[in-house]
């Protein structure tokens, strides 16, 4: 059959391309399907400091390209296209893309995760009009303005710090009474004079007149609601796995992650899940690349027994 590969990998982030390097070095035919450019979520970090081997840090975008080149050196092919459907049961798995159908004897799912949205009315409509998910990308459009950062984890803390250097005022809205972010962030945030904390609170509404004009926050303890006028809302409340394509075919947990243990095997034989899309306790680039190597091992075992 035309367009048939030993291994089809969906997603070109660190987990996907590490799987590709290992599978291609094992002399399997490998196709990586990536809808954008390589690197996945890494591309949003210009200075990655916890990936070993780069004592001065490394640009996530460059690292993604290097991983792609490394895999292609051993014969991996990359198709830049969006996957719009899959049929994973059966010995030959079908992957439907915007640019045609492809068939894999095995499939590695490496679709990663995306920004979680608050799920408020008008949120989607206001993206690019005051609602943003990437402080590094959009911070400069709010120079001298007042913005809110919603969230309490590491990325919310990092976003608030970054924005405090650009904006007049940053309001950090978090639903708990303390931040979940690592301690390293706490003291610089406390020291930043233009960062105000609105704790124990959730955003109940994004106020707008064509563009964002404010937020309504609700204090969870007192029940009190109030409006805060501002120009932008940066939402940093974690990630949501990209698994919509696989629902109904593959076992997925209540949070949307594909259920697979350290072997990366899913409930469907010949289908593996690697990186942030898989149920796992720690989601880092290094754990994603670890998954890639592991998946390649079990793919090899699976293909040998076909």
């Amino acid at each position, binding site marked *: 059959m035309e367009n048939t590969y030993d291994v089809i990998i969906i997603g070109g982030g660190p987990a996907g391309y590490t799987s590709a390097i290992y599978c291609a070095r094992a002399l399997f035919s490998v196709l990586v399907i990536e809808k954008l450019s390589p690197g996945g979520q890494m591309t949003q970090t210009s200075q990655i400091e916890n990936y070993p081997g780069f004592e001065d840090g490394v640009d996530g975008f460059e690292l993604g390209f290097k991983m792609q080149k490394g895999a292609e050196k051993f014969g991996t092919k990359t198709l*830049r296209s969006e996957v719009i459907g899959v049929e994973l049961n059966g010995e030959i798995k079908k992957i439907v893309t915007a640019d045609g159908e492809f068939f894999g004897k095995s499939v590695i799912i490496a679709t990663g995760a995306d920004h979680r949205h608050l799920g408020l009315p008008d949120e989607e409509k206001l993206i690019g009009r005051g609602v943003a998910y990437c402080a*590094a*990308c959009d911070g400069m459009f709010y120079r001298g303005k007042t913005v809110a950062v919603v969230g309490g984890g590491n990325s919310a803390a990092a976003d608030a710090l970054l924005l405090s250097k650009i904006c007049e005022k940053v309001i950090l809205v978090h639903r708990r009474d303390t931040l979940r972010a690592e301690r390293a962030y706490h003291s610089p945030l406390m020291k930043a004079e233009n960062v105000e904390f609105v704790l124990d609170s959730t955003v109940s509404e994004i106020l707008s007149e064509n*563009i964002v004009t404010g937020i309504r926050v609700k204090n969870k303890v007192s029940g009190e609601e109030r409006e805060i006028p501002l120009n932008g809302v940066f939402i940093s409340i974690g990630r949501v796995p990209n698994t919509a394509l696989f629902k109904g075919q593959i076992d997925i947990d209540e949070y949307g992650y594909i259920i697979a243990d350290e072997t990366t095997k899913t409930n469907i034989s010949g289908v593996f899940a690697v990186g942030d899309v898989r149920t796992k306790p720690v989601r880092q680039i290094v754990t994603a690349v670890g998954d890639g190597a592991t998946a390649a091992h079990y793919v090899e075992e699976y293909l040998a027994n076909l």
Partner: protein
Amino acid sequence: MSVITVNKENFQKEVIESDRPVLVDFWASWCGPCRMVSPIVDEIAEEHPEIKVCKVNVDEEAELASQFGVMSIPSLFVIKEGKVTNQSVGALPKNQILELL
């Protein structure tokens, strides 16, 4: 066709007075999602001679960016006969960009 770098000076001629539909990509070098979209936009320029593809660097052309109300990048605009007919924010795969057109 090659991608045209648009600034305040050539905007009128290249975009507003274009006889072909124009895809304008507002981007910046420090924006990861912009860099992910950039090669896709380049590919569209090569494969679709009927479309004029332009890029605006928001660092250099803040005035154009604010004229278009750009508050998030990458921002893509489709302009036909001088008028914005479609727009989107964020990194999109090629098929979805082509749908905008």
